[in-house]
């Protein structure tokens, strides 16, 4: 697909020189890019997918954790609590929806009570504000119908749309001068003299003083390109079911079971999304491939059973989709559980800022990780604040359908494209689709539109709007059938014209 604000590969021209090159355009890479874009630096982000946030950053629960789960003194504890407190201001600047809806960690039986108390103490040691142990009566007030002995309530737990947030970070970085190279898979990284040379499969070459490894599930691969063999990522898949919005009102806060030792995740639970769906999941299976985003009938069946237990009014027709994401775990299957984040400025490879094993709570921690990386970068290249840095994105927070009828009428009067609904299920307007098509990073896939405009995300999964979007792209933007990708290169949606 054509329209692209991101840089295209230019072969033959001289290799561009940067102060900082970031490998990986997930939430962490983009948070770093956006933080560094405050300073007078030449920055580039290199990403193998055709859009930002296509891996784990789009494939998770979208929960802002409070920070009760991590060992005091660990990076995860510190960065989670700090990241959580930075999120609200950041989302205000980036016009991203955020809801601090709180979380109940529920003890179902007596044996789980010590875990609850231990979590509270740990959370307090980590600086998590407002923690309380609640009786069933108070639990009921927060979440009608919740069952359990007692629960730990963490009011700073929140929800956010993880891909909307990632895209907003990237757009902000781009508008503040960061170059994006999308669809460029890094093949080789070399350090020669004081600089790094990054080469991609398509032949793009970038030279940089500082190299940041934010490659997520592939971060160990990037390490090995530089001769660092200290790390191995064990991909661990989590599958989810997405439930119809009509069940959304059942959840007013998040409810998790009390955690059990040695588990790789936090247990199957229901999570409300900022857009009103409910997610059931995630599961926990170590898999072979770092991008093995399949779902399995065995896990889907299990999630369905768990979902029915947690939400008795759930019927089969309420399940609209399944998806999976991969955790970048450092703990091998036989060890289980979690290891701490690795965030280091390597002394053996000067100029290499290395991030490995950023699994949960990576999303919540991302703004704090970005600051930590900024401090590491400041020791490598001088940072001078740019007066022209603009923290805000100019746009509306949320969607047309979330406005009152009066506000909607005003918008349509101002711009008729708001009056035309393209996606029926989510009531997304033509204006919102056009804005997504014309976004500063460019559009190279239909999924890029989905993650920006929320089209094709409703109960009919694009049955109504995909043909409409295809029509807009053909008629108004000159797309040919072969220009349409689902998400990555090779994912052609169509094979050509029926008749020429």
């Amino acid at each position, binding site marked *: 697909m054509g329209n692209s604000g991101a840089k295209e590969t230019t072969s033959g021209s001289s290799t561009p020189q940067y102060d900082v090159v970031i490998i990986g355009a997930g939430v962490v890479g983009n948070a770093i890019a956006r933080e560094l874009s405050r300073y007078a630096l030449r920055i580039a982000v290199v990403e193998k997918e055709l859009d930002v946030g296509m891996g784990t950053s789009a494939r998770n629960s979208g929960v802002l954790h409070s920070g009760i789960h991590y060992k005091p003194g660990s990076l995860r504890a510190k960065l989670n609590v700090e990241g959580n407190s930075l999120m609200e201001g950041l989302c205000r600047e980036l016009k991203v929806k955020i809801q601090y809806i709180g979380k109940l960690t529920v003890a179902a039986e007596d044996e789980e009570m010590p875990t609850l108390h231990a979590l509270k103490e740990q959370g307090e040691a980590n600086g998590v504000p407002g923690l309380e142990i609640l009786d069933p009566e108070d639990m009921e007030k927060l979440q009608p119908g919740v069952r359990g002995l007692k629960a730990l309530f963490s009011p700073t737990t929140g929800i956010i749309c993880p891909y909307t947030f990632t895209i907003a970070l990237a757009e902000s970085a781009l508008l503040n001068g960061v170059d994006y190279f999308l669809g460029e898979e890094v093949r080789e990284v070399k350090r020669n003299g004081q600089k790094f040379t990054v080469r991609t499969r398509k032949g793009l070459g970038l030279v940089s003083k500082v190299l940041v490894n934010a490659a997520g599930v592939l971060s160990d691969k990037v390490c090995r390109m530089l001769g660092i063999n200290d790390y191995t990522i064990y991909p661990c898949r989590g599958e989810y079911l*997405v439930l119809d919005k009509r069940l959304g009102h059942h959840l007013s806060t998040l409810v998790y079971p009390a955690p059990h030792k040695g588990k790789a995740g936090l247990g199957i639970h229901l999570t409300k999304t900022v857009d009103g769906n409910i997610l059931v999941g995630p599961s926990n299976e170590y898999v072979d491939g770092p991008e093995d985003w399949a779902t399995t009938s065995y896990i889907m069946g299990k999630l369905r059973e768990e979902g029915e237990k947690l939400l008795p009014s759930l019927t089969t027709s309420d399940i609209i989709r399944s998806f999976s994401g991969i955790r970048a775990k450092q703990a091998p299957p036989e060890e289980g559980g979690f290891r701490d984040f690795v965030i280091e400025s390597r002394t053996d490879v000067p100029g290499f800022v290395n991030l490995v094993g950023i699994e949960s709570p990576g999303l919540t921690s991302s703004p704090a990780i970005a600051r930590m990386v900024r401090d590491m970068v400041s020791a490598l290249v001088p940072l001078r604040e740019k007066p022209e840095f603009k923290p805000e994105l100019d746009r509306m927070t949320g969607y047309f359908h979330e406005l009152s009828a009066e506000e909607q009428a005003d918008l349509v009067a101002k711009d008729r494209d708001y009056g035309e609904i393209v996606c029926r299920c989510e009531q997304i307007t033509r204006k919102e689709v056009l804005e997504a098509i014309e976004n500063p990073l460019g559009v190279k896939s239909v999924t890029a539109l989905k993650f920006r405009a929320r089209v094709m995300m409703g109960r009919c*999964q694009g049955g109504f709007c995909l043909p409409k979007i295809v029509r807009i792209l053909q008629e108004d933007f000159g797309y040919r059938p072969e220009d349409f990708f*689902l998400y990555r290169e090779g*994912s*052609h949606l169509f*094979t050509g014209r029926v008749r020429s």
Partner: protein
Amino acid sequence: MGPKELKKGVVVVGGGPAGLAAAVSAKASGCDDVVIIERGRMLGGILNQCIHDGFGLHRFKEALSGPEYAQRFIDQVQDLGIETLLNTMVLSINDSREILASSREGLFRIRAGAVVLAMGCRERTAGAIFLPGTRPAGVYTAGVAQNLINLQNIMVGEEAVIMGSGDIGLIMARRLALEGASVKGVYEILPYPSGLPRNIQQCLKDFGIPLHLSTTVVELHGRARLKGVTVARVDEARRVIQGTESFIPCDTLLLSVGLIPENELSREAGVAIEPLTGGALVDDTLMTSVEGVFSCGNVLHVHDLVDHVSEEADMAGHFAARFAVGEMKPRDSYIPIAPGRGVRYVLPQKISGEMDVVISLRVAEPMEQKAIVGRDQNGRGIFRKKQVKLHPAVMMRIKVKKEKLQGVSSMEVGVEG
């Protein structure tokens, strides 16, 4: 500023076959201000992408294409001067028959004397049937493929497998074959096809496309574009029989695995939904549980033939007009009708007993040499209709005279030997 306020007699939501017939009938039944709200840019709805023929055999005694069938009604809409709002989406309806709609001309709120719900249905998706595996490009519902191929001149693939034997899937199997694609086969999880017998003959047999019953797709393969599917046989309980899996290479999978009446607006308006049909619970005037709100066509229950949709919509439009002009007398009591043995659903679910009714129903499984029998609260026969062949794909419509309903306080409709 706020939305523009309007007042109308009968508001028909949807300009497909049901909406068109309902609007024409409402106008003919004495309501002067009938308006059709259609979200697409032209009237006709899904008929516009149905370029094959076979429509209208009952109604017009002719085999018409979808657009030709629609045009017959569109001409009447125009002749009768019925107002149509195109490119207009209804955002919400409430239980006081207030409709909020949006178009490029602005937002408006209509107070309706009566509302006819005619929104049609949507296709069941890969997500809704828990299709496991990767998420490559090349997986479409049959109706989306039909839209892209017939209306936008876009070819979706070269080697196709069809999952499910619903009518649109059968039609699209033939359509793909006609355009030079290789259609590997149709895989149906049930022991019998879901589509009409005539489509099995004309779309599969006539084109040499194999139909595999009690077989289904159990996994998708391919990262970027679909590379193939695993199919397997299933037992009576639809469980996969281990060891029967085989890999079928293909770049396209079309899903024809069911249609879901599109009742999100209806639910919001407080309309009670009957789980057996997925549509509104209606009486013999096709009025829903919300006073003055009527329902017809595929939003009420999924039909087999558009001719039946039109017939049902005639009735909904007629009674909506009567209601809007204040000529419908309120009912004090109803006779409930329930499906009995061998019957999946009956519609309407309740009747007044004061007028002739048409009972629509589908049987639960294929049967031969049986009768559809309606019995009252005492087991007394109300009607009996003998059938040589009964098939769930075929919707039956049985007329019952009001004289037969005297003394009936409840009815059950079942299959008997």
